[in-house]
């Protein structure tokens, strides 16, 4: 599409020097971005670059600390004017906001029924309007169907239709493809192209860089809260894009993502000639819809990274290894012993410990003390006739608290009272308490401060267990001896320790193969 000229035309939406601070983190730093009608734009950036904050400001969920958000040349109203915001901008989030137990038509007109008399809804008329609406926006589904029975892609398109119905012609898609299969992705893109021709403008947030080139005219890159570059997609090739996302410090000629310790270990340890025994053997494991025949081996004392973006299948593979998820095929062996599929208790008995990704959902029991959380998997060891020795429990918990430098008033402090970083350390303590053979860590330093991070890294380096570190954070992956990269359910690349950040990012984005 030829780039139109915008001289004298107010942009559809714009930020003028906006800054936003959350606590001590400067999430956005003086960002000015114009979005012109008919000129869809992609916003790219690594985790924490400020993309979500940008979305929050543009959709009126948050007010900027400095600068302003303008629509069609006029400053946006107060964030309380929800109806105004809804009719100017809509965001389809990664997490669906469709209510699964209501029908398509009910979702489409949620709390805003077009044909009602004093609140009495004329369903026949409403249905007719819904059919028209969906037909207009090219969504072919039965309006009386339960929304929960729609496919993920159809639900997304239903959300887009709802936004369009509310009057908005500017739609933000926040990582819309993360949970879609490739067929659904192309359906979504067809839909987006059709809507673009009908005059809808999109702001597209995606980790998958090649998608940007498919559906956007322009691209903006955020890094550490600053707008690094804003250009027409044709003027920026993928290499430039990755460089802008990663930053100058990580140019191919300079520096390395891996730490010296890891590099030191590396010589010749990758091949089959490595004398160390294989501790964890994952043999062509598949998980329906997310992992396709993944194989990896970890030798004693080795730290292996499993990298990949959300939706790459890395979390599902990790869950299969720890027994949270039942694989559909393949075998997992620990020291030659096959794990019964989908059995967390057996996995733990055999010697696998786990630091889960979502520590609130399945990491710790907030109602229990730090001491109890740490001791939970090893109660058998510190009890006689089933009666827990409080003395031994306290001793082992105190040792772990000291080792991990968990900040508590004492070991009996309730875990829910701790800060996020210390909760994370408690979860790590629990994983280490059983002296595991294999340690599966998902984002082990998420949400912890820089000193705690260093402590956790030292602990991970110091453990005797074979470590599988699941993450897409380059600084976490850097402590691994080698890194396997997953993309679209497959392990696509393996890096020895001396990789560079841009290579890693490219591999995770599925660019280099």
């Amino acid at each position, binding site marked *: 599409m030829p780039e139109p000229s915008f001289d004298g035309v107010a942009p559809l939406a714009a930020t003028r020097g906006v800054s936003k601070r959350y606590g001590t983190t400067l999430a956005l730093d003086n960002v000015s971005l114009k979005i012109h009608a008919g000129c869809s734009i992609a916003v790219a950036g690594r985790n924490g670059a400020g993309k979500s904050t940008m979305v929050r400001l543009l959709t009126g969920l948050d007010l900027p600390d400095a600068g302003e958000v303008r629509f069609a040349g006029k400053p946006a109203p107060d964030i309380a004017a929800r109806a105004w915001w809804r009719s100017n901008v809509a965001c389809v989030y990664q997490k669906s906001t469709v209510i699964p137990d209501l029908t398509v038509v009910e979702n489409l007109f949620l709390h805003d029924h077009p044909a009602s008399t004093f609140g009495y809804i004329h369903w026949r008329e409403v249905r007719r309007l819904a059919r028209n609406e969906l037909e207009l926006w090219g969504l072919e589904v039965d309006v009386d169907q339960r929304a929960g029975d729609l496919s993920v892609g159809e639900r997304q398109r239903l959300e887009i239709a709802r936004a369009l119905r509310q009057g908005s012609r500017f739609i933000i898609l926040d990582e819309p493809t993360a949970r879609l299969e490739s067929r659904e992705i192309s359906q979504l893109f067809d839909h987006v192209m059709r809507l673009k021709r009908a005059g809808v403008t999109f702001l597209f947030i995606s980790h998958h860089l090649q998608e940007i080139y498919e559906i956007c005219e322009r691209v903006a890159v955020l890094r550490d809260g600053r707008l690094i570059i804003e250009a027409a997609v044709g003027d920026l090739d993928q290499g430039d894009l990755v460089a802008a996302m990663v930053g100058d410090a990580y140019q191919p000629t300079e520096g390395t993502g891996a730490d010296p310790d890891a590099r030191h270990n590396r010589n010749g340890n990758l091949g089959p000639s490595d004398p160390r025994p294989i501790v964890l053997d994952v043999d062509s494991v598949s998980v329906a819809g997310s992992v396709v025949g993944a194989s990896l081996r970890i030798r004693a004392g080795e730290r292996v990274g499993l990298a990949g973006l959300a939706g790459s299948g890395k979390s599902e593979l990790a869950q299969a290894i720890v027994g949270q998820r039942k694989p559909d095929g393949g075998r997992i062996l620990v020291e030659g012993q096959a794990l019964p599929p989908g059995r967390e208790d057996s996995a733990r008995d055999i010697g696998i410990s786990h630091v*889960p990704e979502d520590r609130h959902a399945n990491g710790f029991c907030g109602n229990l003390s730090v001491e109890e959380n740490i001791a939970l998997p090893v109660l058998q060891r510190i009890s006689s006739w089933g009666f827990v020795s409080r003395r031994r429990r306290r001793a082992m918990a105190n040792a772990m608290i000291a080792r991990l430098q968990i*900040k508590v008033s004492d070991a009996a402090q309730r875990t829910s009272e701790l800060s996020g970083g210390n909760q994370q350390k408690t979860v790590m303590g629990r994983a280490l308490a059983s002296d595991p053979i294999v340690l599966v860590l998902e984002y082990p330093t998420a949400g912890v401060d820089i*000193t705690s991070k260093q402590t956790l890294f030292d602990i991970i380096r110091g453990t005797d267990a074979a470590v599988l570190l699941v993450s897409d954070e380059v600084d976490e992956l850097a402590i691994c001896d080698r890194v396997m990269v997953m993309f679209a359910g497959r392990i696509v690349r393996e890096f020895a320790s001396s990789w560079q950040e841009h290579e890693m990012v490219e591999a995770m984005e599925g660019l280099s193969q």
Partner: protein
Amino acid sequence: MAIDMDAQKSVLTMAAAPVRRSRLRIGDELALLQLIGVAVIVGSLLHPAFLTPTNLINVLQQSSELSVLVLAEAIILIVGKFDLSLESIVGVAPMFAAWLVSSTAINGSGLMVNPYLAVLLIFVVGIAVGTFNGWLIVRLKLNAFITTLAMLILLRGISIGMTNGRTLYDLPGPLLYLGNAHWLGLPASVWVSAGLYLTGSIILSNHRFGRALYAIGGNAEAARAAGIRVDQYIWTVFAIGGGLAALSGLMLTGRMASVLSGQGQNMIFTVFAAAVIGRISLNGGKGSILGALCGVILLGIISNILTLSNVETFWISATYGAIILLSLIVTRLTAGKSYRSD
């Protein structure tokens, strides 16, 4: 983000680390004991008959069946589930046993089963019902509320239907023993209940089994990740709850010297009242059974005082309702307070 705050705070807490918090493990129970103290004082001021050994023993005995049932509900609440059908086990289990040992002349089965075997069968029935509830909730993943409500209605109907709505009396000694015997001057049921609370309290605070229940109630997924066999534990707790409810029924049968057709009816409301007053969390993972016991005793004393004051039974029920609401509000308003887990 609280990252830097965390670092700053950590410096402070490290400096303050030697100053340990006072270890008041029985904080909640202490507050309840104070309330019990107040109730006793009020009672003795209002009625000279209140503070007599006979009356107090009477209160304890009347509370003993309820307390066993509260114990059953408390452990089920601690794992984060609940069971409404417990009160129907109080009726149906002894009714079944009484029916087996009674002649057809008094609406029994005429089977004249050995009374000791009948006592054993009371527990078998209770545990079987609990196990079945556990199966429905753990394996079929049915909602605990509606499942146990249906079970309550079903069992209530069965126990009335078994004898055409008649009361069974003239029961053999073994069926009555626990509810009317005295050991060392106190009713046997009071001793049994005290023993169960003591054992239960030790198991819940010091045994692996008990700690696992708190972990499951707090966060079942985290407990599972720690290698706890969550489903088996929940199932076991339902079975134990059923067994305890049967014991409660046996004790009640002895005290009444008969099995009423509606035995146990409406007890479940008082059970929840006592558990809530005793600070057992309905969301699981929190509370101690000693707190629940305090709740039972407090309710027993209040009900006794009201009875002595010739207050009609229905007003006593209304009082219970008011007390539950009040204790819920108090719990919510004091929830921000720091709370020790052990």
